[in-house]
């Protein structure tokens, strides 16, 4: 391999590592949103409405793209899935905004920094669509034949595993918590509030989920092969 080829390979590997970090950060952004909604549900005691659950489904759909990029390798298909997921979640947000668009309507649930959660959700979905579009403009990470972080031991793999485990635990919590609220059918339009764990209880629950994600990631990291990381 000539020195020019080597330099080019190293540069492409660096671009791949940057793209992977962007995907990890996107997952942590989604974790923040999901953790906020779980804090409201279990800490404050506000049960999610059906449209809130549709938006949570959209958030989870967005996470599919970055998780597949990290575990399977960078592919345009994965970003396309995230874009479609954001559009589905966005439909739920737009619907809920329209329900409360009339002047004088106080909206549903608490406002955070002046906007209701469904409006913030729409902002998140719009950012996700724009972010995926920008990542699709950047073709280099798709050209290096990436097979994912699973075979490459390192800090990036560990952090990626923490993010993936965290999103998965959040998905399980969201899914299981639907059963007592709605049973197997549709959820009530205006669900009754439950007695929450309180502010500190909600924060502790979020931290416990994060700690569980770190433990699962550490176990997975030990079991996965210890190949050389890209760009090293």
């Amino acid at each position: 391999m000539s020195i020019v080829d080597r330099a080019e390979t190293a540069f492409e590997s660096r671009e791949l590592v940057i793209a992977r970090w962007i995907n990890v950060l996107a997952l942590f952004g989604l974790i923040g949103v999901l953790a906020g909604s779980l804090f409201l549900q279990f800490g404050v005691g506000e049960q999610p409405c059906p449209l809130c659950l549709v938006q949570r489904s959209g958030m989870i759909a967005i996470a599919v793209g970055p998780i597949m990029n990290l575990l399977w390798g960078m592919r345009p298909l994965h970003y396309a899935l995230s874009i479609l997921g954001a559009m589905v979640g966005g439909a739920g947000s737009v619907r809920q905004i329209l329900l409360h668009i009339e002047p004088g309507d106080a909206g549903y649930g608490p406002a955070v920094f002046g906007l209701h959660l469904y409006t913030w959700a729409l902002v998140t979905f719009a950012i996700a669509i724009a972010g995926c579009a920008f990542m699709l403009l950047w073709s280099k990470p798709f050209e290096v034949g990436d097979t994912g972080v699973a075979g490459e031991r390192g800090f990036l793999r560990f952090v990626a595993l923490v993010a993936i485990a965290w999103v998965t635990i959040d998905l399980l919590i969201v899914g299981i918590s639907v059963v007592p609220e709605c049973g197997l059918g549709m959820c009530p339009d205006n669900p009754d509030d439950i007695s929450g764990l309180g502010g500190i209880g909600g924060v502790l629950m979020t931290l416990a989920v994060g700690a569980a994600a770190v433990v699962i990631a550490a176990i997975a990291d030990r079991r996965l092969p210890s190949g050389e990381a890209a760009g090293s």
Partner: protein
Amino acid sequence: MLSMFILWIAVFLGIFFRKKWVPVLAIVSMIWTLVLLRLHMTDPIPLNF
């Protein structure tokens, strides 16, 4: 609405086990989410798509 999240759990399991059907099931999950959204649209508001 539990079915929506069961589908997503299946999608995640498919990702972890590298199953080829993951993109198809992810799209099915999204369509099912839209179906549930449509079923919930019972209020006669403007732009009731």
